[in-house]
């Protein structure tokens, strides 16, 4: 038997190909006879299309075709669907305006798709795209969520004249109002959760292929959930039979949510491939990514926390306006509702919570899930409120949290979720110790001597991962299942190929999932390969988002393994001439209880495929099992972060001097990979707090439209992190795992902003806390 693999720091199986340039990302695929697409995008945020003249473009060198919205409409190509129906406070369904793949009569954001040019080379397509003449009648734009409902605001969609998609609420308002009326203290904050652009380093890319021979389509696409992409595209947009469409998401260079969705470009290249009978490819330029990838966050919120004299939280009241952008992206509607308001209990026993969300359309790129998706916004509300309350009441912020921690599990929150387990004290204690909070005051003094301000801030976050179960999600409006599928194919000589519906775009599934399988089967990890990302190979899949892969996808694999082992026991019982009930299994060994008689996993596999001595009367030959797993609940990772910053009074420059993160992800399969996930999440969270902010001007032009204007954190902007974990295993999945992909991005913004406001001695500061913002705040305070 091999050493245990679950919990081991195994180096990644996928690294060799990435380190030698052998990765195969969508844009690396080259097909015979391929053509190239370039999209004509709207230069205006809001305009009526009066006329499109494509004649010049059609005659440009190398051009094969130019298509506009009229062509798609004539071909009955549908619009992009939204996968989650939110019902508003009056019981009405949300407003779902059409979301055409190429504009129909009107454009609604800068970058909106107007036409596509397909040519023999990418350069020819781009050159010809500039020859497409579009006559626009420019309309007034609305870009700011807070102004979208103002009187006289320009309406984007006929079905939503007030630009409102829905007004939605969660919680007991009367109970909350009553608690506020009696409260000894109320802390109130108004803030903006800044709009972000995900910016995976691999831009989106898609290649559509059609074969007349089998009337089949293949779409290669940089995507996080190929089966969902296929389902949405075939059933709702192109009306194609699902079995005739193969979607392949090969190596994908980061997603962070932005590659979950079905995008117009994916549909258009697939459709065009059939029209032209040749592969049609498109790869976004970074400026196109800025314009047309789904953005994240963008909330305007007023939040209040009611406390009693002892610092016990009595109630929370939150009112948020969420900017959905110009159209509903695939999961846009559930992010500021189901994945936001339900997290407002945080780690605390707050007995009454009420949250009202108004979701609005604006002339900006669609907004959808971005790493954390609703949960960073919720954590920001809760943790900025808690820290501010502690300062107002002059209670140590860590102590105030302790006074309100949930300690009894399972715990039913007032905002729908039931936490199965947790130990918030443990992660807080560990974070305080690892962050050497005890000696903060001497470090602050040392900073002061150098003329610098120093501040400390905490964030104790909770997240809900692996959104589930399907039935509950369905009752809340989900239009998809939320299970995962896995298949174990054992080969005659005992090596194993695993097919998973999860998708890895950096998370290292090829390693962690292989660790689980090799550990359970007692075989070397080299004997296990993980296959993902191809609908023609993997039986089904809901894909990777919401930190669901190990908790949902990993469990589906374990369920399939259980079936393999159950069948193996029957084969072993036959071979060992024992009763099945006497066979014990432990990591690759099938043993007759109380004896030394045993069969190894490899022998069982061989017997299954060379069934000479085999219980044919009871069993089929072969060893291949699959499982679908629909979780009974979310998982609830949680943790405590401590951030220490230093601020330069003269320049407003903030440097993160220490960042400590202690997370509870339940059981951990590969600590090395988990640490990497935390580091990456923290950098994105710190990016939101310090450097990143997507900005449209009043006319709807994207001001931060390149990496020279939108500041992704660079190596010099973030510190090395101090991180650790504590472990309370998830109670409702067999691995005890919770998920770790989003934690850093959820907890970091509040911790950083709490530290900066502490350093400056101000109540609040907008994100990103750029040097200019910080410097202004210092000047205002001095004045």
């Amino acid at each position, binding site marked *: 038997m091999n050493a245990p693999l679950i919990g081991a720091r195994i180096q990644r199986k996928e690294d060799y*190909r990435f*380190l030698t340039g052998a990765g195969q990302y969508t844009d*690396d695929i080259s097909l015979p006879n391929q053509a190239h697409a370039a999209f004509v995008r709207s230069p205006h945020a809001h305009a009526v299309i009066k006329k499109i003249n494509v004649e010049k473009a059609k005659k440009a060198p190398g051009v094969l075709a130019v298509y506009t919205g009229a062509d798609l409409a004539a071909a009955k190509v549908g619009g992009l669907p939204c996968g989650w129906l939110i019902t508003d406070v009056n019981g009405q369904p949300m407003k779902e305006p059409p979301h055409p793949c190429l504009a129909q009569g009107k454009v609604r954001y800068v970058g909106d798709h107007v036409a596509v040019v397909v040519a023999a080379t990418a350069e020819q397509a781009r050159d010809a795209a500039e020859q497409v003449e579009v006559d626009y009648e420019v309309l007034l734009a609305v870009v700011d969520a807070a102004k979208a409902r103002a009187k006289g605001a320009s309406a984007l969609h006929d079905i939503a004249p007030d630009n409102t998609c829905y007004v939605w609420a969660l919680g007991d308002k009367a109970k909350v109002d009553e608690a506020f009326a009696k409260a000894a203290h109320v802390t109130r904050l108004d803030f903006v959760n800044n709009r972000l652009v995900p910016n995976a*380093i*691999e831009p989106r890319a898609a290649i559509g292929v059609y074969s007349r021979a089998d009337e089949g389509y293949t779409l290669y696409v940089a995507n996080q959930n190929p089966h969902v992409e296929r389902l949405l595209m075939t059933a709702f947009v192109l009306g194609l039979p699902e079995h005739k469409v193969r979607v392949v998401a090969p190596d994908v260079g980061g997603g962070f949510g932005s590659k979950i969705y079905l995008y117009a470009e994916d549909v258009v290249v697939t459709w065009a491939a059939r029209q032209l009978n040749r592969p049609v490819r498109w790869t976004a330029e970074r400026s196109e990514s800025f314009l047309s990838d789904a953005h994240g966050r963008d909330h305007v919120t007023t939040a209040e926390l009611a406390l009693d004299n002892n610092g016990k939280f009595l109630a929370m009241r939150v009112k948020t306006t969420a900017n959905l952008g110009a159209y509903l992206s695939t999961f846009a509607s559930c992010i500021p509702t189901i994945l936001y308001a339900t997290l407002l209990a945080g780690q605390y026993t707050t007995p009454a919570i009420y949250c009202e969300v108004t979701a609005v359309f604006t002339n900006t790129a669609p907004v959808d899930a971005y790493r954390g998706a609703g949960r960073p916004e919720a954590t920001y509300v809760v943790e900025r409120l808690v820290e501010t309350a502690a300062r107002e009441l002059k209670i140590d912020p860590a102590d105030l949290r302790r006074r309100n921690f949930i300690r009894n599990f399972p715990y039913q929150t007032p905002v729908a979720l039931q936490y199965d387990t947790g130990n918030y004290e443990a992660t807080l204690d560990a974070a305080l110790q690892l962050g050497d909070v005890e000696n903060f005051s001497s470090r602050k003094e040392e900073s002061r001597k150098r003329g610098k301000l120093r501040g400390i801030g905490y964030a104790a976050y909770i997240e809900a991962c692996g959104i589930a179960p399907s039935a509950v999600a369905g009752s809340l409006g989900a239009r998809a299942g939320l299970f995962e599928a896995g298949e174990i194919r054992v080969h005659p000589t005992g090596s194993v190929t695993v097919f998973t519906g999860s998708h890895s775009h950096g998370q290292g599934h090829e390693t962690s999932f292989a660790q689980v399988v090799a550990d359970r089967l007692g075989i070397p990890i080299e004997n296990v390969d993980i296959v993902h990302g191809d609908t023609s190979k993997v039986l089904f899949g809901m894909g990777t988002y919401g930190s669901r892969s190990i908790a949902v996808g990993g469990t589906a694999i374990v369920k399939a393994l259980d079936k393999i082992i159950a069948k193996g026991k029957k084969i072993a019982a036959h071979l060992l001439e024992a009763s099945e009930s006497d066979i014990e299994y432990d990591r690759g060994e099938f043993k007759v209880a109380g004896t030394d008689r045993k069969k190894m996993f490899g022998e069982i596999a061989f017997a299954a495929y060379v069934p000479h001595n085999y219980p044919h009367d009871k069993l089929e030959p072969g060893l291949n099992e699959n499982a679908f797993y629909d979780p009974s609940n979310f998982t609830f990772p949680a943790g405590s972060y401590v951030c220490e910053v230093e601020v330069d009074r003269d320049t407003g420059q903030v440097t993160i001097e220490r960042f400590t993160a202690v997370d509870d992800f339940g059981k951990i399969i590969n600590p090395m990979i988990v640490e990497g996930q935390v*580091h990456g999440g923290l*950098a994105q969270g710190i990016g939101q707090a310090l450097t990143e902010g997507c900005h449209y001007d009043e006319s709807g032009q994207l001001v931060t439209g390149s990496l020279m204007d939108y500041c992704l954190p660079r190596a010099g902007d*973030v510190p*090395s992190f101090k991180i650790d974990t504590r472990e309370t295993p998830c109670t409702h999945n067999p691995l005890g795992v919770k998920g770790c992909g989003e934690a850093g991005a959820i907890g970091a913004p509040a911790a950083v902003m709490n530290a900066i406001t502490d350093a400056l001695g101000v109540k609040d500061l907008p994100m990103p806390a750029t040097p200019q913002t910080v410097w202004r705040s210092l000047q205002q305070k001095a004045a």
Partner: protein
Amino acid sequence: MSVKVSMKVNGKPVSAEVEARTLLVTFIRENLRLTGTHVGCDTAQCGACTVHMNGRAIKSCSIVAMQAEGADILTIEGVANGNGTLHPMQQAFKENHGLQCGFCTPGMVMNALDFAKGHPNPSEKEVRESLEGNLCRCTGYHNIVKSIVAGARAMAASK
């Protein structure tokens, strides 16, 4: 207008007729089909396209192929040893989990190789400064920094 370009890529002489405006990165990816060199942006910010030209790390999206006429180009495909074993810098990235999605990785490694030549035992600060022109969205840089420190030391030790 098309032009003939000739250069040495990973030790092999190559030449092709290309449009004059063809970027070096496009020549490497599309003409030579060496797709390990990536394109992550259009403003020379991300560094995913970093290759070596005559021994120095450059962004191959920022020059046209013609400008590399006669040059000696090294791409990520030419870094590992002839027998397929990883170069010490690549090995350091693997051992320190210095990559996740892998997209920025070739550029990171190419930049690190050049940096390590002049910094056999770099400090964390020096490494972070050296990464000014390379963006990663996955790792938070923590493990990339560790990888480059370890890789530079390993390169110095193997001399």
